[in-house]
Protein backbone atom coordinates (compact mmCIF):
# COMPACT_ATOMS: atom_id res chain seq x y z
CA UNK A 1 0.00 0.00 0.00
CA UNK A 2 1.45 3.29 -1.02
CA UNK A 3 1.68 6.44 1.02
CA UNK A 4 -1.02 8.20 -1.02
CA UNK A 5 -3.49 5.41 -0.39
CA UNK A 6 -2.84 5.61 3.35
CA UNK A 7 -3.29 9.36 3.43
CA UNK A 8 -6.53 9.26 1.44
CA UNK A 9 -7.87 6.35 3.50
CA UNK A 10 -7.04 8.13 6.76
CA UNK A 11 -8.77 11.28 5.52
CA UNK A 12 -11.87 9.31 4.58
CA UNK A 13 -12.07 7.40 7.83
CA UNK A 14 -11.51 10.48 9.99
CA UNK A 15 -14.11 12.45 8.03
CA UNK A 16 -16.81 9.80 8.14
CA UNK A 17 -16.20 8.82 11.78
CA UNK A 18 -16.47 12.49 12.75
CA UNK A 19 -19.61 12.77 10.64
CA UNK A 20 -21.30 10.07 12.64
CA UNK A 21 -20.22 11.19 16.09
CA UNK A 22 -20.20 15.00 16.32
CA UNK A 23 -22.97 16.78 18.21
CA UNK A 24 -23.68 19.70 15.91
CA UNK A 25 -25.41 18.47 12.73
CA UNK A 26 -23.79 21.10 10.50
CA UNK A 27 -20.34 20.03 11.68
CA UNK A 28 -21.35 16.48 10.81
CA UNK A 29 -22.20 17.44 7.24
CA UNK A 30 -18.98 19.38 6.82
CA UNK A 31 -16.83 16.48 8.00
CA UNK A 32 -18.88 14.16 5.77
CA UNK A 33 -17.89 16.41 2.87
CA UNK A 34 -14.25 15.88 3.85
CA UNK A 35 -14.79 12.13 3.88
CA UNK A 36 -16.47 12.17 0.46
CA UNK A 37 -13.59 14.19 -1.00
CA UNK A 38 -11.24 11.54 0.43
CA UNK A 39 -13.32 8.89 -1.37
CA UNK A 40 -13.05 10.87 -4.61
CA UNK A 41 -9.25 10.90 -4.21
CA UNK A 42 -9.37 7.11 -3.79
CA UNK A 43 -11.38 6.80 -7.01
CA UNK A 44 -8.77 8.89 -8.81
CA UNK A 45 -6.04 6.62 -7.48
CA UNK A 46 -7.90 3.61 -8.83
CA UNK A 47 -7.95 5.25 -12.26
CA UNK A 48 -11.68 6.01 -12.45
CA UNK A 49 -11.43 9.74 -13.24
CA UNK A 50 -15.00 10.18 -14.43
CA UNK A 51 -16.49 8.60 -11.31
CA UNK A 52 -14.25 10.65 -9.02
CA UNK A 53 -15.25 13.98 -10.55
CA UNK A 54 -18.90 12.96 -10.69
CA UNK A 55 -18.70 12.06 -6.99
CA UNK A 56 -17.45 15.55 -6.11
CA UNK A 57 -19.98 17.24 -8.38
CA UNK A 58 -23.00 15.27 -7.15
CA UNK A 59 -22.23 14.58 -3.50
CA UNK A 60 -20.30 17.66 -2.42
CA UNK A 61 -22.04 20.05 -4.77
CA UNK A 62 -25.60 18.81 -4.36
CA UNK A 63 -26.31 16.24 -1.63
CA UNK A 64 -24.30 18.00 1.09
CA UNK A 65 -25.92 21.35 0.30
CA UNK A 66 -29.37 19.70 0.30
CA UNK A 67 -28.61 18.20 3.71
CA UNK A 68 -27.54 21.53 5.20
CA UNK A 69 -30.65 23.20 3.81
CA UNK A 70 -32.79 20.49 5.41
CA UNK A 71 -30.98 20.98 8.74
CA UNK A 72 -31.57 24.73 8.54
CA UNK A 73 -35.25 24.25 7.79
CA UNK A 74 -35.88 21.77 10.58
CA UNK A 75 -34.27 24.06 13.14
CA UNK A 76 -31.87 21.44 14.40
CA UNK A 77 -28.97 23.70 13.62
CA UNK A 78 -28.48 25.35 16.99
CA UNK A 79 -26.87 23.68 19.97
CA UNK A 80 -28.90 20.52 20.42
CA UNK A 81 -31.01 20.35 23.54
CA UNK A 82 -31.54 16.62 23.52
CA UNK A 83 -28.71 14.09 23.59
CA UNK A 84 -27.20 13.28 20.24
CA UNK A 85 -27.34 9.51 20.48
CA UNK A 86 -30.46 7.44 20.88
CA UNK A 87 -31.29 5.29 23.91
CA UNK A 88 -30.28 2.10 22.17
CA UNK A 89 -26.81 3.26 21.17
CA UNK A 90 -25.02 0.33 22.78
CA UNK A 91 -26.82 -2.37 20.83
CA UNK A 92 -26.50 -0.32 17.65
CA UNK A 93 -22.74 0.01 17.93
CA UNK A 94 -22.45 -3.66 18.88
CA UNK A 95 -24.29 -4.63 15.69
CA UNK A 96 -22.00 -2.42 13.61
CA UNK A 97 -18.87 -3.91 15.22
CA UNK A 98 -20.12 -7.45 14.60
CA UNK A 99 -20.88 -6.63 10.95
CA UNK A 100 -17.38 -5.22 10.48
CA UNK A 101 -15.81 -8.25 12.14
CA UNK A 102 -17.71 -10.66 9.89
CA UNK A 103 -16.85 -8.69 6.74
CA UNK A 104 -13.18 -8.40 7.68
CA UNK A 105 -12.95 -12.12 8.40
CA UNK A 106 -14.64 -12.91 5.08
CA UNK A 107 -12.29 -10.62 3.14
CA UNK A 108 -9.08 -11.86 4.70
CA UNK A 109 -9.97 -15.53 4.41
CA UNK A 110 -11.59 -15.60 0.99
CA UNK A 111 -9.16 -13.83 -1.30
CA UNK A 112 -5.66 -15.03 -2.11
CA UNK A 113 -3.23 -12.47 -0.83
CA UNK A 114 -1.23 -12.16 -4.04
CA UNK A 115 1.05 -9.28 -4.93
CA UNK A 116 0.49 -9.55 -8.68
CA UNK A 117 -1.20 -6.32 -9.68
CA UNK A 118 -2.87 -6.12 -13.11
CA UNK A 119 -1.83 -3.11 -15.21
CA UNK A 120 -3.83 0.09 -14.90
CA UNK A 121 -6.70 0.03 -17.41
CA UNK A 122 -6.83 3.19 -19.49
CA UNK A 123 -10.44 4.26 -19.77
CA UNK A 124 -11.42 7.40 -21.64
CA UNK A 125 -14.67 9.30 -21.34
CA UNK A 126 -15.38 8.33 -24.96
CA UNK A 127 -15.61 4.68 -23.94
CA UNK A 128 -17.95 5.52 -21.07
CA UNK A 129 -20.14 7.50 -23.46
CA UNK A 130 -20.14 4.65 -25.97
CA UNK A 131 -21.11 2.15 -23.28
CA UNK A 132 -23.88 4.44 -22.03
CA UNK A 133 -25.33 4.81 -25.51
CA UNK A 134 -25.05 1.24 -26.74
CA UNK A 135 -24.76 -1.39 -24.05
CA UNK A 136 -26.31 0.52 -21.14
CA UNK A 137 -28.88 2.54 -23.07
CA UNK A 138 -31.87 1.00 -21.26
CA UNK A 139 -30.54 1.69 -17.73
CA UNK A 140 -29.77 5.25 -18.87
CA UNK A 141 -33.37 5.85 -19.92
CA UNK A 142 -34.69 4.27 -16.74
CA UNK A 143 -32.43 6.50 -14.64
CA UNK A 144 -33.79 9.51 -16.49
CA UNK A 145 -37.34 8.43 -15.70
CA UNK A 146 -36.41 7.76 -12.08
CA UNK A 147 -34.75 11.15 -11.64
CA UNK A 148 -37.80 12.90 -13.11
CA UNK A 149 -40.09 10.98 -10.77
CA UNK A 150 -37.83 11.78 -7.79
CA UNK A 151 -37.77 15.47 -8.72
CA UNK A 152 -41.53 15.78 -8.98
CA UNK A 153 -42.08 13.58 -5.93
CA UNK A 154 -39.70 15.51 -3.71
CA UNK A 155 -41.34 18.81 -4.65
CA UNK A 156 -44.82 17.46 -3.96
CA UNK A 157 -43.87 15.80 -0.66
CA UNK A 158 -42.11 18.87 0.68
CA UNK A 159 -44.67 21.41 -0.50
CA UNK A 160 -46.55 23.12 2.32
CA UNK A 161 -50.19 22.11 2.43
CA UNK A 162 -52.55 24.71 1.14
CA UNK A 163 -54.90 25.90 3.85
CA UNK A 164 -58.46 25.88 2.70
CA UNK A 165 -60.04 29.22 3.53
CA UNK A 166 -63.50 28.67 5.01
Amino acid at each position, binding site marked *: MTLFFLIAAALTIVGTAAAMSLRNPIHCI*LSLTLGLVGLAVLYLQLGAQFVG*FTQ*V*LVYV*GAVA*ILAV*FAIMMTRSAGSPQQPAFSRSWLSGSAVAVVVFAVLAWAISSALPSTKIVPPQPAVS*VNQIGDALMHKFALPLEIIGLLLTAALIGAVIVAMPERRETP
Partner: protein
Amino acid sequence: MIVPDTVDQIFVLSKHWLLGYVPTALQPIVSAILSVAPVLVVFPLLFAITTVLERKGLGRIQNRYGPNRVGPYGFSQPIADGIKSLTKEDIVPRSADQVVHLLAPLLLVMAAFLAYAVLPIGRNMVLTNLNAGVLFFFAVGSMVELAVFMAGWSSRSKYSLLGAMRAVAQMISYEVPLVLASIVVIMASGSLSTVAIVNLQASYTSIWPHWFIFTPWGFTGFVLFMIAATAESNRSPFDLPEGESEIIAGYYIEYSGFKFALFFLGEYLGMFATSGLAITLFLGGWAAPFSFLTWIPSYIWFFAKLLALICVFIWIRGTLPRLRMDQLMGLAWKFMLPMTLLNIFTAGVWHFMPSGFTRWLVCTSLLIVPCLLLSRGLKQRKKLQIRTYRFAE
Protein backbone atom coordinates in the same frame (compact mmCIF):
# COMPACT_ATOMS: atom_id res chain seq x y z
CA MET B 1 0.55 26.56 -38.81
CA ILE B 2 1.73 24.64 -35.80
CA VAL B 3 5.35 25.82 -36.02
CA PRO B 4 6.81 25.99 -32.52
CA ASP B 5 7.93 29.57 -32.54
CA THR B 6 10.54 30.51 -29.97
CA VAL B 7 8.63 33.49 -28.59
CA ASP B 8 5.38 31.54 -28.56
CA GLN B 9 6.87 28.68 -26.56
CA ILE B 10 9.25 30.73 -24.45
CA PHE B 11 7.73 29.65 -21.13
CA VAL B 12 7.73 25.97 -22.07
CA LEU B 13 11.33 26.13 -23.29
CA SER B 14 12.57 28.01 -20.24
CA LYS B 15 10.88 25.50 -17.95
CA HIS B 16 12.62 22.62 -19.74
CA TRP B 17 15.95 24.48 -19.53
CA LEU B 18 15.51 25.05 -15.77
CA LEU B 19 14.57 21.40 -15.27
CA GLY B 20 17.85 20.36 -16.86
CA TYR B 21 19.68 21.67 -13.81
CA VAL B 22 17.65 19.57 -11.35
CA PRO B 23 18.60 15.95 -10.43
CA THR B 24 16.32 13.37 -12.02
CA ALA B 25 14.75 12.18 -8.77
CA LEU B 26 13.40 15.63 -7.95
CA GLN B 27 12.22 16.47 -11.46
CA PRO B 28 8.48 15.70 -11.10
CA ILE B 29 8.10 17.84 -8.00
CA VAL B 30 10.12 20.73 -9.37
CA SER B 31 8.23 20.53 -12.65
CA ALA B 32 4.93 20.75 -10.79
CA ILE B 33 6.13 23.72 -8.73
CA LEU B 34 7.43 25.49 -11.84
CA SER B 35 4.07 25.04 -13.54
CA VAL B 36 1.92 26.09 -10.59
CA ALA B 37 3.90 29.13 -9.38
CA PRO B 38 3.16 31.35 -12.43
CA VAL B 39 -0.59 30.70 -12.01
CA LEU B 40 -0.36 31.68 -8.33
CA VAL B 41 1.43 34.91 -9.30
CA VAL B 42 -0.26 36.00 -12.52
CA PHE B 43 -3.91 35.67 -11.61
CA PRO B 44 -3.79 37.58 -8.30
CA LEU B 45 -1.89 40.29 -10.21
CA LEU B 46 -4.71 40.31 -12.73
CA PHE B 47 -7.13 40.56 -9.78
CA ALA B 48 -5.30 43.66 -8.55
CA ILE B 49 -5.42 45.28 -11.99
CA THR B 50 -9.10 44.38 -12.34
CA THR B 51 -10.12 46.04 -9.08
CA VAL B 52 -8.74 49.39 -10.16
CA LEU B 53 -9.96 48.94 -13.75
CA GLU B 54 -13.44 48.19 -12.47
CA ARG B 55 -13.58 51.17 -10.16
CA LYS B 56 -12.35 53.55 -12.83
CA GLY B 57 -14.60 51.99 -15.47
CA LEU B 58 -17.68 52.17 -13.24
CA GLY B 59 -16.78 55.72 -12.35
CA ARG B 60 -16.60 56.79 -15.97
CA ILE B 61 -19.92 55.05 -16.75
CA GLN B 62 -21.45 56.95 -13.85
CA ASN B 63 -19.95 60.25 -15.08
CA ARG B 64 -17.29 60.63 -12.41
CA TYR B 65 -13.58 59.89 -12.06
CA GLY B 66 -12.66 56.64 -10.37
CA PRO B 67 -9.84 56.55 -7.82
CA ASN B 68 -7.20 58.96 -9.04
CA ARG B 69 -5.08 59.82 -6.00
CA VAL B 70 -2.71 56.99 -5.39
CA GLY B 71 -0.47 56.62 -8.36
CA PRO B 72 -0.33 57.71 -11.97
CA TYR B 73 -4.06 58.17 -12.69
CA GLY B 74 -4.89 56.04 -9.63
CA PHE B 75 -3.36 52.80 -10.87
CA SER B 76 -1.46 52.05 -7.66
CA GLN B 77 -4.78 51.82 -5.78
CA PRO B 78 -4.47 48.02 -5.29
CA ILE B 79 -1.28 48.52 -3.28
CA ALA B 80 -3.10 50.89 -0.95
CA ASP B 81 -6.05 48.48 -0.73
CA GLY B 82 -3.74 45.58 0.05
CA ILE B 83 -1.96 47.44 2.85
CA LYS B 84 -5.31 48.50 4.29
CA SER B 85 -6.81 45.02 4.33
CA LEU B 86 -3.66 43.46 5.78
CA THR B 87 -3.41 45.88 8.66
CA LYS B 88 -7.06 45.97 9.71
CA GLU B 89 -8.01 44.29 12.95
CA ASP B 90 -9.39 40.80 12.44
CA ILE B 91 -12.66 40.83 14.36
CA VAL B 92 -14.45 37.52 14.85
CA PRO B 93 -17.84 37.64 16.64
CA ARG B 94 -17.80 35.90 20.00
CA SER B 95 -20.70 33.61 19.19
CA ALA B 96 -19.35 32.66 15.80
CA ASP B 97 -18.15 29.16 15.03
CA GLN B 98 -14.41 29.79 15.06
CA VAL B 99 -13.13 26.88 13.00
CA VAL B 100 -15.73 27.11 10.24
CA HIS B 101 -15.40 30.90 10.20
CA LEU B 102 -11.70 30.53 9.41
CA LEU B 103 -12.08 27.70 6.92
CA ALA B 104 -14.70 29.28 4.69
CA PRO B 105 -12.52 31.86 2.86
CA LEU B 106 -9.69 29.33 2.60
CA LEU B 107 -11.95 26.79 0.93
CA LEU B 108 -13.27 29.46 -1.44
CA VAL B 109 -9.83 30.57 -2.57
CA MET B 110 -8.57 26.99 -2.85
CA ALA B 111 -11.50 25.95 -5.03
CA ALA B 112 -11.06 29.04 -7.22
CA PHE B 113 -7.35 28.33 -7.75
CA LEU B 114 -7.91 24.64 -8.51
CA ALA B 115 -10.07 25.55 -11.49
CA TYR B 116 -7.08 26.97 -13.38
CA ALA B 117 -5.50 23.56 -13.70
CA VAL B 118 -7.37 22.70 -16.88
CA LEU B 119 -7.34 26.00 -18.78
CA PRO B 120 -4.95 26.09 -21.75
CA ILE B 121 -3.28 29.47 -21.56
CA GLY B 122 -1.13 29.03 -24.64
CA ARG B 123 -0.06 26.40 -27.11
CA ASN B 124 1.23 23.42 -25.01
CA MET B 125 0.72 25.52 -21.87
CA VAL B 126 -1.84 23.70 -19.75
CA LEU B 127 -1.18 22.54 -16.18
CA THR B 128 -2.79 19.11 -16.59
CA ASN B 129 -4.34 17.68 -19.72
CA LEU B 130 -7.12 15.76 -18.01
CA ASN B 131 -9.29 13.48 -20.12
CA ALA B 132 -12.35 14.83 -18.29
CA GLY B 133 -11.14 18.43 -17.97
CA VAL B 134 -14.47 20.26 -18.27
CA LEU B 135 -16.05 17.92 -15.71
CA PHE B 136 -13.20 18.65 -13.30
CA PHE B 137 -13.84 22.37 -13.73
CA PHE B 138 -17.52 22.05 -12.83
CA ALA B 139 -16.79 19.69 -9.92
CA VAL B 140 -14.37 22.20 -8.41
CA GLY B 141 -16.80 25.05 -9.05
CA SER B 142 -19.48 23.29 -7.02
CA MET B 143 -17.24 23.44 -3.94
CA VAL B 144 -17.58 27.23 -3.98
CA GLU B 145 -21.24 26.97 -2.99
CA LEU B 146 -20.35 25.01 0.13
CA ALA B 147 -17.76 27.64 1.07
CA VAL B 148 -20.36 30.40 0.68
CA PHE B 149 -22.77 28.55 2.94
CA MET B 150 -20.06 27.95 5.53
CA ALA B 151 -19.25 31.65 5.57
CA GLY B 152 -22.83 32.69 6.05
CA TRP B 153 -23.75 30.12 8.67
CA SER B 154 -20.66 30.39 10.83
CA SER B 155 -21.17 34.11 11.43
CA ARG B 156 -24.35 33.44 13.47
CA SER B 157 -25.98 36.59 12.20
CA LYS B 158 -29.39 36.86 10.59
CA TYR B 159 -28.26 39.00 7.66
CA SER B 160 -25.34 36.79 6.80
CA LEU B 161 -27.44 33.61 6.98
CA LEU B 162 -30.10 35.15 4.77
CA GLY B 163 -27.49 36.29 2.28
CA ALA B 164 -25.85 32.87 2.28
CA MET B 165 -29.12 31.01 1.65
CA ARG B 166 -29.99 33.34 -1.20
CA ALA B 167 -26.52 33.07 -2.67
CA VAL B 168 -26.51 29.26 -2.51
CA ALA B 169 -30.00 29.02 -4.01
CA GLN B 170 -28.93 31.33 -6.84
CA MET B 171 -25.69 29.45 -7.48
CA ILE B 172 -27.24 26.00 -7.62
CA SER B 173 -30.04 27.27 -9.87
CA TYR B 174 -27.63 28.78 -12.36
CA GLU B 175 -25.27 25.84 -12.34
CA VAL B 176 -27.74 23.87 -14.45
CA PRO B 177 -27.81 26.26 -17.45
CA LEU B 178 -24.04 26.72 -17.09
CA VAL B 179 -23.34 23.02 -17.50
CA LEU B 180 -25.99 22.53 -20.20
CA ALA B 181 -24.65 25.46 -22.22
CA SER B 182 -21.21 23.89 -22.30
CA ILE B 183 -22.56 20.47 -23.29
CA VAL B 184 -23.17 21.80 -26.81
CA VAL B 185 -19.43 22.36 -27.25
CA ILE B 186 -18.65 18.92 -25.83
CA MET B 187 -21.10 17.39 -28.32
CA ALA B 188 -19.53 19.26 -31.22
CA SER B 189 -15.95 18.44 -30.34
CA GLY B 190 -16.49 14.92 -29.07
CA SER B 191 -14.20 15.26 -26.07
CA LEU B 192 -14.20 16.61 -22.52
CA SER B 193 -10.54 17.62 -22.70
CA THR B 194 -9.99 21.38 -22.92
CA VAL B 195 -6.84 20.95 -25.01
CA ALA B 196 -8.74 18.92 -27.61
CA ILE B 197 -11.53 21.53 -27.72
CA VAL B 198 -9.08 24.37 -28.37
CA ASN B 199 -7.14 22.37 -30.94
CA LEU B 200 -10.35 21.84 -32.88
CA GLN B 201 -10.94 25.59 -33.02
CA ALA B 202 -7.39 26.57 -33.96
CA SER B 203 -7.71 26.06 -37.71
CA TYR B 204 -8.74 28.50 -40.42
CA THR B 205 -10.63 28.47 -43.71
CA SER B 206 -8.98 31.22 -45.82
CA ILE B 207 -8.71 33.85 -43.09
CA TRP B 208 -11.77 33.02 -40.97
CA PRO B 209 -11.30 31.00 -37.77
CA HIS B 210 -13.29 27.94 -36.75
CA TRP B 211 -14.37 29.25 -33.37
CA PHE B 212 -17.61 27.81 -32.06
CA ILE B 213 -19.07 31.24 -31.44
CA PHE B 214 -19.48 31.72 -35.20
CA THR B 215 -22.24 29.13 -35.40
CA PRO B 216 -25.86 29.75 -34.30
CA TRP B 217 -25.76 27.18 -31.52
CA GLY B 218 -22.33 28.41 -30.43
CA PHE B 219 -23.44 32.01 -30.22
CA THR B 220 -26.54 31.11 -28.20
CA GLY B 221 -24.45 28.86 -25.99
CA PHE B 222 -21.96 31.67 -25.41
CA VAL B 223 -24.66 34.17 -24.46
CA LEU B 224 -26.35 31.68 -22.08
CA PHE B 225 -22.97 30.69 -20.62
CA MET B 226 -22.04 34.33 -19.93
CA ILE B 227 -25.38 35.04 -18.24
CA ALA B 228 -25.01 31.93 -16.07
CA ALA B 229 -21.37 32.82 -15.31
CA THR B 230 -22.42 36.30 -14.16
CA ALA B 231 -24.95 34.72 -11.83
CA GLU B 232 -22.50 32.10 -10.56
CA SER B 233 -19.99 34.71 -9.45
CA ASN B 234 -22.71 36.81 -7.80
CA ARG B 235 -21.99 39.84 -9.94
CA SER B 236 -24.39 42.54 -10.99
CA PRO B 237 -27.15 42.31 -12.13
CA PHE B 238 -27.37 39.13 -10.06
CA ASP B 239 -25.75 40.42 -6.90
CA LEU B 240 -28.76 40.46 -4.59
CA PRO B 241 -26.98 38.18 -2.08
CA GLU B 242 -24.26 40.74 -1.66
CA GLY B 243 -26.23 43.87 -2.34
CA GLU B 244 -25.02 46.71 -0.21
CA SER B 245 -28.30 48.51 -0.08
CA GLU B 246 -30.46 45.49 0.66
CA ILE B 247 -28.81 43.23 3.14
CA ILE B 248 -25.59 45.01 3.98
CA ALA B 249 -23.14 42.86 2.08
CA GLY B 250 -24.74 39.51 2.79
CA TYR B 251 -22.70 36.52 3.77
CA TYR B 252 -19.42 38.29 4.44
CA ILE B 253 -20.58 41.01 6.80
CA GLU B 254 -18.85 39.59 9.84
CA TYR B 255 -15.50 39.27 8.10
CA SER B 256 -12.89 42.00 8.32
CA GLY B 257 -9.34 42.56 7.26
CA PHE B 258 -7.51 39.86 5.40
CA LYS B 259 -10.38 37.35 5.27
CA PHE B 260 -12.58 39.95 3.58
CA ALA B 261 -9.86 40.48 1.01
CA LEU B 262 -9.70 36.69 0.54
CA PHE B 263 -13.42 36.63 -0.23
CA PHE B 264 -12.97 39.28 -2.90
CA LEU B 265 -9.97 37.43 -4.27
CA GLY B 266 -11.98 34.20 -4.42
CA GLU B 267 -14.92 35.84 -6.15
CA TYR B 268 -12.82 37.55 -8.79
CA LEU B 269 -10.68 34.47 -9.38
CA GLY B 270 -13.88 32.53 -9.94
CA MET B 271 -14.96 35.14 -12.46
CA PHE B 272 -11.63 34.86 -14.29
CA ALA B 273 -11.78 31.08 -14.29
CA THR B 274 -15.30 31.01 -15.74
CA SER B 275 -14.30 33.59 -18.37
CA GLY B 276 -11.27 31.43 -19.15
CA LEU B 277 -13.55 28.44 -19.67
CA ALA B 278 -15.85 30.52 -21.90
CA ILE B 279 -12.82 31.52 -23.97
CA THR B 280 -11.67 27.90 -24.18
CA LEU B 281 -15.08 26.55 -25.14
CA PHE B 282 -16.45 29.23 -27.45
CA LEU B 283 -13.83 31.79 -28.38
CA GLY B 284 -11.06 29.49 -29.54
CA GLY B 285 -8.73 29.55 -26.52
CA TRP B 286 -5.32 30.79 -27.51
CA ALA B 287 -6.02 30.88 -31.26
CA ALA B 288 -5.70 34.14 -33.17
CA PRO B 289 -8.82 35.63 -34.81
CA PHE B 290 -7.42 35.77 -38.33
CA SER B 291 -4.87 33.53 -39.98
CA PHE B 292 -2.52 36.40 -40.76
CA LEU B 293 -2.26 37.27 -37.05
CA THR B 294 -0.81 33.99 -35.81
CA TRP B 295 2.65 35.49 -35.40
CA ILE B 296 1.46 37.11 -32.14
CA PRO B 297 2.17 34.60 -29.31
CA SER B 298 -0.72 32.43 -28.13
CA TYR B 299 -0.70 33.50 -24.48
CA ILE B 300 -1.07 37.15 -25.55
CA TRP B 301 -4.29 36.23 -27.34
CA PHE B 302 -5.64 34.37 -24.29
CA PHE B 303 -5.05 37.32 -22.00
CA ALA B 304 -6.41 39.78 -24.58
CA LYS B 305 -9.65 37.81 -24.81
CA LEU B 306 -9.76 37.52 -21.01
CA LEU B 307 -9.40 41.29 -20.63
CA ALA B 308 -12.13 41.81 -23.21
CA LEU B 309 -14.53 39.56 -21.27
CA ILE B 310 -13.64 41.33 -18.00
CA CYS B 311 -14.47 44.65 -19.63
CA VAL B 312 -17.80 43.20 -20.75
CA PHE B 313 -18.51 42.15 -17.14
CA ILE B 314 -17.66 45.64 -15.86
CA TRP B 315 -19.79 47.23 -18.56
CA ILE B 316 -22.80 45.08 -17.68
CA ARG B 317 -22.33 45.86 -13.99
CA GLY B 318 -22.42 49.57 -14.64
CA THR B 319 -25.41 49.46 -16.93
CA LEU B 320 -28.10 47.04 -15.76
CA PRO B 321 -30.17 47.33 -12.57
CA ARG B 322 -30.23 44.59 -10.01
CA LEU B 323 -32.69 41.72 -10.40
CA ARG B 324 -35.06 40.74 -7.60
CA MET B 325 -34.81 37.24 -6.17
CA ASP B 326 -37.94 35.87 -7.80
CA GLN B 327 -37.03 37.43 -11.14
CA LEU B 328 -33.61 35.84 -10.87
CA MET B 329 -34.94 32.35 -10.18
CA GLY B 330 -37.66 32.70 -12.80
CA LEU B 331 -35.02 33.60 -15.37
CA ALA B 332 -32.95 30.53 -14.54
CA TRP B 333 -35.65 27.90 -14.46
CA LYS B 334 -38.24 29.21 -16.90
CA PHE B 335 -36.13 30.85 -19.58
CA MET B 336 -32.54 29.65 -19.55
CA LEU B 337 -33.19 25.96 -18.95
CA PRO B 338 -35.56 25.54 -21.94
CA MET B 339 -33.24 27.64 -24.11
CA THR B 340 -30.22 25.47 -23.28
CA LEU B 341 -32.16 22.30 -24.04
CA LEU B 342 -33.31 23.77 -27.37
CA ASN B 343 -29.71 24.75 -28.05
CA ILE B 344 -28.58 21.14 -27.62
CA PHE B 345 -31.30 20.01 -30.04
CA THR B 346 -30.26 22.68 -32.55
CA ALA B 347 -26.62 21.60 -32.36
CA GLY B 348 -27.74 18.08 -33.23
CA VAL B 349 -29.73 19.37 -36.20
CA TRP B 350 -26.70 21.40 -37.33
CA HIS B 351 -24.50 18.33 -37.20
CA PHE B 352 -26.74 16.20 -39.39
CA MET B 353 -27.80 18.74 -42.01
CA PRO B 354 -25.58 19.28 -45.07
CA SER B 355 -23.55 22.44 -44.88
CA GLY B 356 -24.92 25.54 -46.58
CA PHE B 357 -27.44 28.36 -46.30
CA THR B 358 -30.44 26.11 -45.36
CA ARG B 359 -28.59 24.88 -42.32
CA TRP B 360 -28.03 28.44 -41.09
CA LEU B 361 -31.66 29.38 -41.75
CA VAL B 362 -33.14 26.36 -40.00
CA CYS B 363 -30.90 26.54 -36.94
CA THR B 364 -31.23 30.28 -36.48
CA SER B 365 -35.02 30.14 -36.66
CA LEU B 366 -35.05 27.13 -34.30
CA LEU B 367 -33.31 29.33 -31.76
CA ILE B 368 -34.81 32.79 -32.28
CA VAL B 369 -38.50 31.87 -32.43
CA PRO B 370 -38.66 30.03 -29.06
CA CYS B 371 -36.53 32.76 -27.49
CA LEU B 372 -39.04 35.42 -28.54
CA LEU B 373 -42.04 33.30 -27.55
CA LEU B 374 -40.59 32.47 -24.13
CA SER B 375 -39.62 36.02 -23.31
CA ARG B 376 -43.02 37.38 -24.37
CA GLY B 377 -44.83 34.64 -22.48
CA LEU B 378 -42.94 35.16 -19.24
CA LYS B 379 -43.38 38.89 -19.02
CA GLN B 380 -45.51 39.74 -16.03
CA ARG B 381 -48.55 41.56 -17.18
CA LYS B 382 -48.44 44.90 -15.45
CA LYS B 383 -50.10 47.86 -17.01
CA LEU B 384 -47.83 50.88 -17.10
CA GLN B 385 -49.61 53.98 -15.90
CA ILE B 386 -48.69 57.59 -15.69
CA ARG B 387 -46.85 58.05 -12.43
CA THR B 388 -48.73 60.10 -9.79
CA TYR B 389 -47.15 61.41 -6.61
CA ARG B 390 -49.01 61.43 -3.36
CA PHE B 391 -47.39 64.37 -1.65
CA ALA B 392 -45.32 66.19 -4.17
CA GLU B 393 -48.08 67.74 -6.35
